[in-house]
């Protein structure tokens, strides 16, 4: 090799100053943004539902039969109704979030294999662990707490719209703003969101694993065990333990929070603002429930399995 040639060769663009790796936080942020680019339903669907509810608040006709309704002339009843509206209006947003979030988890690791774009993602210095965790982060943090924030904002918008209609006289003056109750209801919704996420995390892990695993029809494969399992158990043994277990994993969150048998609206009227649920909800019990922590351990195992499958499977 001629040394002068090497000496006069243009400087390599490679510089040692270039960082050896991006900070994990920056990579994770990019990965989360990428999920929101691809799966636009994650944020579009809750936004559309919130907009529809705002439309209903603006032009919907409300008929309140003052004779049948609880005594809405009292301040405490108005505050209670206010809290309940705050709570009830958030429910459609959470429901749509659970729906699109579940579909997202089931689709995210399957679609990238189906269209072979996994070969592009894998050509970049992003570990399989970080990639899968970014998807879990989207489903268990970005989505639920994004919806929480959206519900909070949406409720303020509804309140403003309803307040305007009351002051214009098109609605009876049945609502009353109470900052303390408002804050208490938001706190309850935040904590319930947090515990629901922790309780349902194993389901998210399971959906991710199915998504990483199956060759086709992820929806079918994800639901089949939960349909066939209980049926087979009942046919073979005449028992329903599996069904009970599935029911517990879906609805057990209300048990461990101590509100499994509490009705928000009592027969005696609305004298329980949702905020007062803080006194009923047993977060300490939920936090110390062994089943919550067992579920999280199972989640970790399921996610680890999904990561291993994405790392080592070779069929694209």
């Amino acid at each position: 090799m001629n040394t002068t040639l090497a000496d006069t060769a243009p400087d390599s663009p490679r510089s040692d100053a270039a960082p050896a790796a991006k900070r994990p936080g920056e990579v994770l942020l990019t990965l989360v943004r990428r999920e929101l680019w691809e799966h636009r339903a994650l944020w579009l669907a809750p936004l559309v539902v919130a907009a529809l509810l705002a439309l209903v608040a603006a032009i919907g006709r409300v008929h309140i039969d003052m004779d049948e309704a609880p005594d809405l002339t009292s301040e405490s009843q108005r505050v209670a109704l206010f809290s309940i509206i705050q709570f009830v209006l958030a429910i459609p947003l959470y429901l749509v979030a659970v729906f699109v979030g579940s579909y997202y988890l089931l689709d995210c690791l399957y679609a990238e294999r189906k269209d072979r774009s996994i070969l592009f993602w894998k050509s970049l210095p992003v570990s399989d662990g970080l990639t899968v965790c970014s998807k879990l982060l989207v489903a268990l943090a970005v989505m639920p707490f994004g919806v929480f924030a959206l519900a909070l904002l949406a409720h303020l918008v509804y309140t403003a719209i309803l307040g305007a209609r009351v002051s214009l006289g098109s609605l009876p003056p049945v609502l009353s703003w109470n900052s303390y109750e408002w804050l208490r209801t938001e706190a309850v919704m935040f904590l319930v969101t947090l515990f629901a996420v922790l309780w349902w995390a194993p389901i998210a892990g399971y959906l991710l694993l199915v998504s990483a695993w199956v060759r086709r029809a992820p929806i079918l494969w994800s639901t089949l065990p939960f349909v066939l399992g209980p049926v087979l158990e009942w046919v073979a043994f005449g028992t329903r333990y599996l069904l009970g277990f599935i029911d517990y994993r879906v609805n057990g969150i209300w048990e461990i929070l101590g509100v499994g048998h509490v009705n928000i609206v009592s027969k005696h009227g609305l004298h329980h603002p949702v905020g007062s649920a803080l006194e009923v909800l047993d977060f300490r019990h939920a936090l110390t429930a062994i089943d919550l922590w067992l579920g999280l351990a199972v989640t970790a195992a399921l996610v680890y399995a999904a990561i291993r499958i994405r790392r080592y499977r070779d069929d694209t």
Partner: protein
Amino acid sequence: MTAVIEARGLTKNYGATRALDDVTFAVDAGRIVGLIGPNGAGKTTALKAILGLTSFSGELQVLGLDPRTQRDALMREVCFIADVAVLPRWMRVSQALDFVAGVHPRFDRAVAGSFLKKTDIRMASRVRELSKGMVTQLHLALVLAIDARLLVLDEPTLGLDLLYRRNFYDTILNDYFDKERTILLTTHQVEEVENLFTDVIFINHGRVALSAAVEDLGSRYQQLTPVAEQAARARALQPFYEREVFGRVAMFFEGRSAAELGAFGELRTPSIADLFVAKMQGTGSP
């Protein structure tokens, strides 16, 4: 020179099919290596092994790393285009640049942007709106802007028209390749790119049939077009492949000197494409 890739005894089975059978080769830095073989010969399996995308037995070091256990570190130094059009179809061009900029420490967005300016690709377009050729251009723009030490290309121009193919390889050669970079390429269109290669590895039935620097081929392989009356005597020197085109016989020899063969007729170094055909179809190949 340091070896960028060192493979010893690579073996890989898919069920009963042996995709790689004791494959051993080395690739030095600053080379452009053509990995050439018929369909199902094991090329893609070999590339997958190098990129840590498949399991295998045997020893393999890529840039001093084991692709099985150190894949994440390896991908900072290695770029690959696995196939045409694997870019996610929902992605916008600008998002592709944002994403790679966000995860790759060696990506220079300005380089990709200036390359894309020379094309018809618009930043707001989605990948699914681009033609196959444009998708390849976009992927090329991303790869050019990544300061990697090894670039692996698996049939990158399959299904593209001649203009895109020419542009693709010209760009690789002019804007990307330098003394510190190494390119490993598989392609079916050997004739088109054979001038690109500094080294070739022929692979067939999962085995390496030939691994050599192009500059050494001339001293190892001879293609003889004997005059008719000398054909029998030339054949006695055991060509490993013989073919007849328009009534003229071409014989391929390995390890015979020009002095031995020159007397029988016209002698030249076979082209890589001809040598490939000879090696794949000839008898007595090692």
